[in-house]
C-alpha cells in the first residue's frame, strides 16, 4: 500500500476552525476556500457507496478502497462527520443494528433526496472533469 496516490488531506478541516466550519456547512453556508470542493467530493463518494444498499462506515471505507484501488486514501474517521452532516440534511438516514459479534452497528441508507442530490452532482462533476480533461489533453 505504498502507492503515493492522491492523499486527500482532510486535515484541511483542522486548524482550530474545524468545529466552526463544519457547523457552518451544516447550516448551508459555504466557506470560500478549497476545502469546500474536497468536502463535497467526499460526500459524493459516500452517497455513491450507499447506492448499493445500506452500509456502515467501515463498509463504506472498504468499498472506496476497493473501487478506487486504494488510490484515494481517506482518513477513515473523517467519513463520520460527513455522514452525520448528511444525515442532518436528509440525504441519508441511519438505524442501529447488531453485528455478528454482538456489537452495536450504525447503518446508513440513502434517502430519496440523497439519491436526487447524487444524480445532480454526479452530472455536474462529470461535466467538470470532462472539461478539465479536455484542457489537459490539448498540447
Amino acid at each position, binding site marked *: 500500500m505504498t502507492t503515493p496516490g492522491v492523499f486527500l488531506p482532510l486535515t484541511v478541516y483542522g486548524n482550530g476552525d474545524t468545529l466552526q466550519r463544519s457547523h457552518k456547512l451544516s447550516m448551508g453556508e459555504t466557506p470560500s476556500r478549497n476545502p469546500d470542493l474536497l468536502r463535497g467530493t467526499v460526500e459524493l463518494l459516500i452517497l455513491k457507496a450507499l447506492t448499493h444498499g445500506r452500509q456502515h462506515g467501515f463498509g463504506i471505507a472498504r468499498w472506496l478502497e476497493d473501487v478506487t484501488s486504494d488510490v484515494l486514501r481517506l*482518513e477513515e474517521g473523517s467519513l463520520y462527520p460527513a455522514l452525520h452532516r448528511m444525515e442532518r440534511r436528509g440525504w441519508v438516514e441511519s438505524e442501529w443494528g447488531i453485528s455478528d459479534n454482538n456489537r452495536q452497528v450504525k447503518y446508513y441508507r440513502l434517502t430519496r433526496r440523497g439519491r436526487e442530490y447524487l444524480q445532480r452532482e454526479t452530472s455536474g462533476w462529470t461535466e467538470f472533469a470532462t472539461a478539465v480533461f479536455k484542457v489537459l489533453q490539448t498540447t
Partner: protein
Amino acid sequence: MGKDTMWRRYLRFWGADPPADVDAEIDFHLEALVQHFIARGMAADQARVEAARRFGNVARVRSECLTVDEGWARAAARRETLDALSQDLRDGIRGLTGNPGFTVGAALILALGIGLNTTVFSFNRALLFPSLPIADPPSLVRMWSQNLARGIYVEPLSEGDSADLFTASQSFDEVAGYVTEPVTLTRTHPRGGVEAERIPAMRATTNLFALLRVAPVLGRAFQPQDAADEASRVVILSDRAWTNRFGADRSVIGRDIVLNGRPHTIVGVMPHAFWFESKEIEVWLPRPAPRVEGGRGARTLMTIARLESGATMQTAQADVQALAQRLAREHPQTNAGWDILVTGLLPLGPGEKVFFGLVTTLTSLLLAAACAHIANLLLARGMERRGEVAIRAALGARRGRIMRQLFVESVALSILGGICSLVVALPIIAEIRAVLGPRTSYLSDLSIDGVALAITSGLTLLASALFGLAPALRLSSVTAGDAIKQPPGGPITGRPRRPLVSALIGLEVAIATVALIVTVLYTRAGYNILAIPYGFESENVVTFRLDVPEYKYSEASAAARVLTDVHQRLQALPSLAAVGASTRLPLNMGPGLPTQAITLEDRPEVAQDQRPWTITTTVMPGYFEALGIRLLQGRTFESQDSSEAQRVAVISRSMARAYWPDLDPVGRRLRLDGDTTSLWRTVIGVVDDVRPLDPTSPQVRQTYVPFAQSPGRALIYFVATRDAPLSRFQDVRVAVRGVDSELPVLDLRMMTDVISTATSGSDMGQKTLRVNAAIAALLAVSGVYSVVAFAVARRRREIAIRVALGGTRPSIVAMLLGQALRPALIGVVVGLVLSGLVSRAIAIMLFGVDPLDPLTYGGTAIALCVAAVAASCVPALRATRANPVSALRAE
C-alpha cells in the same frame, strides 16, 4: 421519512445520549479495522497501530460528530417546544370558549377589577408623578404662606417675604416668582376695527426658565435687564400661541404684539411640549425680582425653587420655618401667626391626600377581591376537570406539559380581562378628563397608564395562574383510575375540607364589608355637608365677570364708573329681581382669599398673632338681595353709602358672634388693617353667613364693604331673574355693550352651574367609592352563591341519599349552609375590625359622622349576612327539592 422519525430511531438505542452513540460508532470502526489488518496477516498490536493511523484523529472526529448531532438535537427540541406551545395555545383558547359562562364571568370580573385599578393608578401617577416637560421635577418645591388659624392651608407669598426667601435661605439653588394673570391682546384688523382678547399669561422673574432648565426653541430666554428696563417690553410666546396665532411662522422674533395697550417685542418661543402651571398660558412676561420693600400685606406671588443637591423637602421646611418665625417677630403686623409651607409641585391638602389614599386602598382591595373570586372559580373548575386532567396524564402527557397548558389558559384569561378592562377604564378616564381637566392641567391629558395596566394585569395573571394550575399540582396524589372512577365531588362521607376556598370567601366578604362601611360613612358625611345651608340662593341667578382694562381706563375712578354704570343699567331692567356685584364668588370660591386682621374699636390691644381677622368682600348694593342672603339686623348698603359718606361695613353672623358675643354689633366700629385708607368703619348691619365649600373652615367671619367706598377694577355680578334666566344673558350683554362695546363679558353662566362645577370633583369621588363598594358587595355575595352552588353540585349524591333516607329539608340545608356561611361570618367580623381602622384613618373627612358609628357597622354586617344566607339558600333549597332517584341515577 420525516426528520423526526429518523431522530427517534437514532435515539432509540441509548436514549438521548449522542456521545455514547458516537463512541459506539467509532469503536466499531476501529475494531473492524483491527480485525481487517489481522486478517491480512498483521500482528495484533501492529494492527492496532495501523488501525489508529488509518482512522485518523479520534478526538477530532468525535467532537465534530457531536457538534452536528447536538446542534440537531437542539433544533429538534426547539421545534417540539414550539409545536407544543401552539398546541397549548389552541387548547387553552378552546378551553375558554368551551366554557363560555365561566369565561364571560371571569372576564367581566377581571375587567372591573383591572379597569378600576388602572384608572386609579393612572390618575395617581398623573398627579403625583407627572411626566413634566421640565428637568428633575422631584427637586422642585413651592413655598406658600400658611395660616391655619384662619383656615388658610396655602396662599401665595407676599413680595417682601419672597424677597427674604430669595436671599436668606440656603436650601435652595434658585428661587423664582410668578403670577398668572390675564392680559389683553389687541389686534387691528386689516379692514379696520380693533379686536381685544383676554389671554392667560404669566409674569415671571427672569430666572424662571433657567430654574426649570428649559430654553426657548426660537429666539432667547429672558435676561435680567428685561424686567428692569421700563422702556423695553419683551414677551415670550408659548408654542400654543405661536402655532395658533402666528401660524408657526419662524420670523416672529422681533415682531411686536400689543398687550394691555402697549407694544411688546417677541423675543422667544417656547418648545412644543413645554407647559408650566397651566397649559392655557399663552405668553410669558418678565417681572423684576421681589423686593423687601414690596410689602408684606398682600400675598400674591407664587414662588417656586429648586432644592440644592443634598437638601430635602424636610430640611428646606425646617429652614423656612426659622425664616417665618423671624419674619413674624420682625413684622408682627403682617406676619404674626403666619407660617411658610414647603410643598412639592402639586400641593395637595390633607383632605385630598386622605381621599386619594382611601380611593386607592379601596380599589386595590377590590382587585384582591376580584382575584379571590377568580381563584375560587378556577378551583371549582379545576375540581371538575380533575378527571380530564387525569385521563390526559394516563395517556402520556407529562405533568409539565399539562401545567403549561393550564398556564396558557390563565394567560389567555388574563389577557382577555386586560382587554375588557379598557372598556371599563377608558370611559372613566375620559370623564375625569372632562370634569377635572379644565381645573388642572395635570389632568387635562389624562390617559391610561400602560405601566399600571401591565402591572395590574400581571397581578391577576399571577393569581389566576396559581389557582389555575391547582388541578395539575394535585396530579401526583391522584391516580388516573381513581380520578375517573370517583364522582366529581369526592368521597360521599364527611364534609370535604376546602380551607382554601373558605379563606377566599372570607377574604371577599371582609373586603366587601370594609368597602361598604367606609363608603356609607363617607356618603353620609357628604350628605351632612350638603345639608348645611349655603346661606344664599343660587336658583335663577345669572353671574358674569367684568375686568376693566387698565390701558383703556387708566384712572381708577373711570374704571369704577364703568362698573357702576353697568350695575345701574341692569338695575333699571324690570325683568330682573335684583342686581348686585362683589369681588368674589360666594362659597369662598374665586381668585384669592385675602384675610385681613382687624382692629375693634372698643377692644384692648392683643398679641399680633391673636388679632381678630376677617374675610373682606367688596360689594355693590343689591348683592345680598340678588343672592338671597338674609339680613338679620340693621340694614345693607344703599346709594347713600357713597364715597363722601361715613365709612360703613356689614358683617356676618359668625363675625358678630365671635367678636361681639353678647352685644349689639350695629354701631360698633372696626378698622381693616391693610386697607389703604385705614379709616374706622361703622357696622350698619348683620347678615347671614355664607359658608365656604369646606364646612370645617373658620372662614365664615365675613365683612362686606361698599364698592363706592372701596372701588376696584373688577367685579363679579349676580343677577337674580324673575323668569327665563337664560334669556337674561342677552340683557346682560346689551347692558355691558351699552357702557363699553369693547368690554368683554366673562364667565357668563348660571350660578347653579358654578356650584355644580365646584362640587363636581367631590361628586366624582363619591361616585367612585359607591361603584367600588357595589362591585365588592356583588362579588362577595355571588362568591358565596357560587361556592354553595358548587358544593351542592359536588355532593348531589350525598344529598340525594340523605333525602332518600328521610333527612329533613332544614337539616340538609343547614348542613350545606354551614360550609359557606362560616367563612362569610368570619369575613364580616374581620371586615368590621378593618373598617374601624380605616375609618379612623380618614376621620378628618367624615364630617359629622362617627367613624365607629354602630348603626352603620351593625346595619352593614346584618345586610351582608342576610345576603350571604339568601345567596346560599337558593342553591341549597333547589338541591333538596331535586328528585333523589334521578339525582342518583345521573351519576
